C-alpha cells in the first residue's frame, strides 16, 4: 500500500475534493483506493460514533467496506480539547498508525492533512511528522492567491525532500489560467516541482445549498421548500435604489439576494433575474404578493429576524468554505480531475 499525503498550508484549498475526484478516477481503472482525513472539524454523529461529516461522505462515495472510522479516525471536538488541556495523552497518532496498518492490502491510501502544515502538532499528526513516520509521498494542494502561493509549494518540497511528489494549483481565476500554465508551471518545473493539474475556480463547486443558507441565517422558509438542495453560487445585497438594481442583478447568475423584508421593489426586480433564493431580513412576514410571485417562479424565500448586515456576515463566512457533501459536486470533481489532472504522469511518478 502506498500512502499519498495531500497537504496544504491554508484551509479550504480543495484537498478533499481533489482526492475524491482522483480516487473515483483511479477506482474506475481498477485500483483499490482508501481515504483518510487526519483531523476532522465537522463533527457528525453517525450510529453513536463521532465522525467528520465530509470524511463520512467521501467514505460513502468510495463505497468503502472498511469501518467509517477508518476515514475519520479523529475529530476535533470540545471533549478532545478539554482532555488535551487537562494533560491527558490522547494517543491519536497511535490510533491512526494502527488503522493505516490495517489498510495494507489497498493500492493507494489518500491521507488528508490538517489545514496548515503544523496543524495537529500537539497530537503528533502535523504534516511533517506524518511524512516522516509514514514515508508518505506528498502532494501539495495549493489554492492560487497570487504569486506568493508558490512559496508554500517550494517550502514543502524542501521539507518533504525525496517524499515530495508535486503540486496541484486550485481555485485559479479563469483569466489567469493560461498565465499559470505558460509562466508559473514551467518555473515550478524548473525548480523541480511537477504540477499535476491547474484547476480553474469553479462557481459550482464553491456554491452552497439553499438549505445551508437557511441554516446559517437561522431562518424560516416561506416557499420553495422543494428547492432546498439547489446550489447558490453568488450573493448580492439589495440595498440600492431600485433604478440601479436591475443592471446589478443581471450581471450575477445563480445568486441569493439579501434584502430587507420591506424592500418589495428590490424583491420583485431580483426575481426578474437569475436568482436562486431571496433572503429577507429584519422580519418574519414576507409580503403576500411577493410570495405569490416567488411560488410561481419557484424561487425559495427565506425570512430571518437577523438584520441585513448580520445575515451577510454569516453568509460571507461560509461562501467558498462549504464542506463536500453533495453527490453532484463529487461527480463534478471526478470530471474535472479526469480532464485537468495528469493521471498518467501521477501514476508514473508513483511507479505503479
Amino acid at each position: 500500500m502506498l500512502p499519498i499525503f495531500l497537504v496544504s498550508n491554508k484551509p479550504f484549498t480543495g484537498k478533499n475534493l481533489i482526492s475524491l475526484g482522483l480516487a473515483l478516477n483511479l477506482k474506475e481503472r481498477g485500483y483499490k483506493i482508501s481515504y483518510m482525513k487526519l483531523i476532522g472539524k465537522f463533527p457528525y454523529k453517525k450510529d453513536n460514533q463521532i465522525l467528520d461529516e465530509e470524511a463520512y461522505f467521501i467514505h460513502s462515495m468510495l463505497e468503502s467496506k472498511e469501518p467509517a472510522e477508518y476515514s475519520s479516525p479523529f475529530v476535533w471536538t470540545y471533549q478532545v480539547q478539554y482532555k488535551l488541556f487537562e494533560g491527558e495523552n490522547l494517543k491519536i497518532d497511535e490510533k491512526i498508525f494502527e488503522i493505516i496498518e490495517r489498510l495494507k492490502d489497498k493500492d493507494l491510501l489518500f491521507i488528508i492533512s490538517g489545514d496548515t502544515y503544523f496543524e495537529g502538532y500537539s497530537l503528533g499528526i502535523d504534516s511533517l511528522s506524518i511524512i516522516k513516520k509514514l514515508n508518505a509521498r506528498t502532494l501539495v494542494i495549493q489554492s492560487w492567491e497570487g504569486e506568493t502561493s508558490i512559496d508554500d509549494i517550494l517550502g514543502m518540497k524542501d521539507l518533504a525532500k525525496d517524499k515530495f511528489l508535486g503540486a496541484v494549483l486550485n481555485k485559479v481565476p479563469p483569466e489567469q489560467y493560461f498565465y499559470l500554465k505558460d509562466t508559473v508551471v514551467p518555473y515550478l518545473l524548473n525548480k523541480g516541482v511537477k504540477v499535476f493539474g491547474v484547476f480553474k475556480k469553479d462557481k459550482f463547486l464553491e456554491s452552497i445549498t439553499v438549505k445551508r443558507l437557511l441554516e446559517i441565517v437561522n431562518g424560516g422558509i416561506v416557499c420553495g421548500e422543494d428547492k432546498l438542495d439547489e446550489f447558490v453560487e453568488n450573493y448580492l445585497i439589495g440595498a440600492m435604489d431600485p433604478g440601479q438594481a436591475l443592471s446589478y442583478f443581471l450581471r450575477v447568475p445563480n445568486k441569493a439576494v439579501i434584502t430587507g423584508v420591506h424592500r418589495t421593489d428590490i424583491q420583485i426586480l431580483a426575481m426578474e433575474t437569475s436568482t436562486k433564493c431571496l433572503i429577507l431580513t429584519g422580519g418574519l412576514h414576507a409580503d403576500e404578493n411577493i410570495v405569490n410571485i416567488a411560488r410561481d417562479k419557484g424561487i425559495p424565500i427565506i425570512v430571518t429576524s437577523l438584520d441585513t448586515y448580520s445575515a451577510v456576515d454569516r453568509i460571507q463566512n461560509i461562501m467558498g468554505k462549504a464542506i463536500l457533501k453533495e453527490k453532484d459536486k463529487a461527480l463534478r470533481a471526478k470530471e474535472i480531475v479526469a480532464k485537468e489532472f495528469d493521471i498518467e504522469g501521477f501514476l508514473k511518478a508513483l511507479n505503479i
Partner: protein
Amino acid sequence: MLDFIFKPQSIAVIGASEDEKKIGHVVFKNLVNQGFKGKVYPVNPKRKEILGIKCYPSVREIPDKIDLAIVVIPAKGVPSIIKECAEAKVKGLVVITAGFREIGGEGIQLEHEVAELVKRYGIRMVGPNCLGVINTLNKMNATFASDLPPSGRVSFFSQSGALGVALIDWAIENDFGFSKFVSLGNKADLNETDFLEYFGKDPETDIILGYIEDIRDGRKFLEVAQKVSKIKPVIVIKAGTTEAGARAASSHTGALAGFDRAFSEAFKKAGIIRVNTIQELFETAEIFKLKNLPKGNKLLVITNAGGPGIIAADTADKLGIKLNPMSKESIEAIIDKLPPTASLYNPVDIIGDATSERYKIVLEQAIKDELIDGICVILTPQAITDVENVAKEIIKANQISEKPIFACFIGGKKIREAVKNLKSQQIPCYSDPSTAITSYKKLIDFSIIKNKKEPEIPKIEIPLENKERVKLILEVLENAGVTSVGDENASEILSLYGFEFPKKALARTPEEAVEVAERIGYPVVLKVSSPQILHKTDVGGVKLNLKNAEEVYNGFIDITINVKRFMPNAYIKGVMVYEMVIGGKEVILGVSYDTTFGHMIMFGLGGIYVEILKDVSFRITPLTKEEAYEMIEEIKGSKILEGVRGEAPYDKENLVDKILRLSQLVMDFPIIKEIDINPYVVKHQGGIALDARMIIGRI
C-alpha cells in the same frame, strides 16, 4: 413665570418694515391695528417712522423699558440683536426669523450661538423659526397671522407654525375662543415643557392644547405634565407616529417597543389626552368647556330618533361607557308623562313627535338620578320638533345640574340658531353622535386622571452589598467593552435584585454533567456556556427535559458537536446544567430604552403572543404598583393568567413584584439599557426566570 411674553407692557418689533409684503410689516401692523393694550415700538435703522409711529435705530435707543422684543430681521443679524436686547434689559424674545437649525449646516451653528447668548444674558426666547405669540385678552397679536381669534379659555402651543395659522383661521370661522397661543419654532430655548407649565398656572387658561413633533427633555416634560394634567385637561397631537422610524434594536424588548410606543406611554403616564387629528383636537377641546366632570362612566342618552341613538350606543359600548337605564324610581316617575311607544331604557327614545316638553321631563329626572353620571341629548329636527326650546331646556338643565350635559344636534338650517345658543352657553354640541360620545370619553378620562392618587413609587429594599456587587459586575463588563450581557452575568445581576433562577452548575465533561444532574435532580436542561453565543437554540446549544444519566451524557456531546459545527471558533466554557422548570406560564419581562423618556418596562405572554401578536404592554419608569398591575391587565391575553378551563390562577403578585424590581434596577443602574427575561415562568405561586440578557451602554 413667562408673563413678559404674554403680558408685556411694551414690545419692540426689531425689523419692523414699511413694505407691506414683509413679515416685519405684518407683525408690527397686527400689534398696532388689532388693539394691543401695551406700547409698541418699531426698530429699524433705515426708517424714521412706520405706520406713523416713531421708529428707533436700535432697541437701546428706546426710552421706555422693553419687556418683549419680536425679532424679524435676517438670521445672521440675530446674535448682535440679542446683545443689544441684553443691554436694553429686554426680558423676552420672540425670534420669528427662519434660517437656523431647519436649514442645516451654518444654520445649526447659528442656532447654537443664539441659544448660548440668551442663556448667558438670562433672556428667555421663543423660536427661532416660529410664527409668534398671541394673547387674545390683551389683544396682542405678535404673529404674522392675519387676525386675532376670538377670546376664550383655551391655550395652545404648537411646534408647527403653519398649523398655527390654519388653526387661528379655523377658530375665527368657528367662533372658537383662544386665550393664548405660542408657536414653538425650533425650541432653542423655551420649549413645550415651559409653556405647559405656564399654561398650567395661568388663571386665564382652562384647557391646554398642544401640537408637538418631538420633546426636548422627556423626563422634565413628564414631571410637569403629571402635575398640570391633574388641574387642567392637556390635549396633545403628537405627529410622527408610524413605526417606520423604529430603531433597529438588538434585543426583543427593544424591537417590540418601537418608536411611538414611548410617546403613547409617556402621555398615558402624564395624564395627557392624546388625539390624532386636528379635527379631533377641537372636538375634544369642545367637550372640556363643561365645568362638571362625570363621577363615573355611566351615561344617559336622550334622543328623538332611533338611528342616532343606536350609533351613540354602539360607540359608547366600544369605548367602555356604560349605558345603564335610570333607576326604577326615575322610570316610574316619567313613565306616565311619555307616550307608551317611547323607550324608557337607555337610550331613552322619546320618539319623533317629541317636543321640548318631553326633553324637559327626562332631563329633569336624569339630573337627579344617582345612577347617571352624564347626559347626552340627541336631536333631529322633525316635523313638530321645537328645536330652540329644546336648546333652552338643555341650557336650563345645565344650570342646575352637577352632571355634564352635552348635545348632538343633527341637521342644517333648522338647528343653526339652537346650536349657536348652546355654544354661547358653553354647552358642547356635536353634529355626529359617534363624535359626541368619543369626545365625552375624554372627559371621563380626564375625570379619572384628576382623581388619581399622587403616584407613589414603591421603594424596594435591595441589600447594600447586593447593589455593590451589581455595580462591580457592571463596571467589569463596561471596562471590558461588553455591551451584550449574556445569561450568566445577567442572571447574577437579576438574582441580586430578587429574581429566582433555576439551580444550575457548569459542567466541562459529559461525566461532570451527569454528576451535576444527579445532584440537582432530573429532569434537567443543558445549555452551552459561551459568552459568544447569545442565541443558544440557534446553534443547537440547548437540550431540554433530559431524564437520566445517559440522556445527559449524550446531550452534552450533542451540544458540543452542534456548536462546533455552527461556530467552529466559538469559545466554549462548558455546558451549563439547569434544573428543569415544570409547569407555569411563560411570560416575557423586559426593559427597553427610549432616548426621550428613558427606560420602559415591558410585559407580555411568552412565545407567539409576543412574537406574532405583539401583545405586550409598556410603562415608563419609575412605576407605581398600580401601573405594574395595569401592565398585566392591559394585555389581551391577561385572562390566560387568571387560569382557564378550571386551572388555578397564576401568581400576579409575583409578576407585579418583579416588574417593580426591574424598574428599581434600571433606576439604580441606568447604564443598563435593555433587559430581556424570556421566558419568565410564572407559577401558581411564585415564578422563576429561565433566560436573561441585557444590553448595557452609556448614551
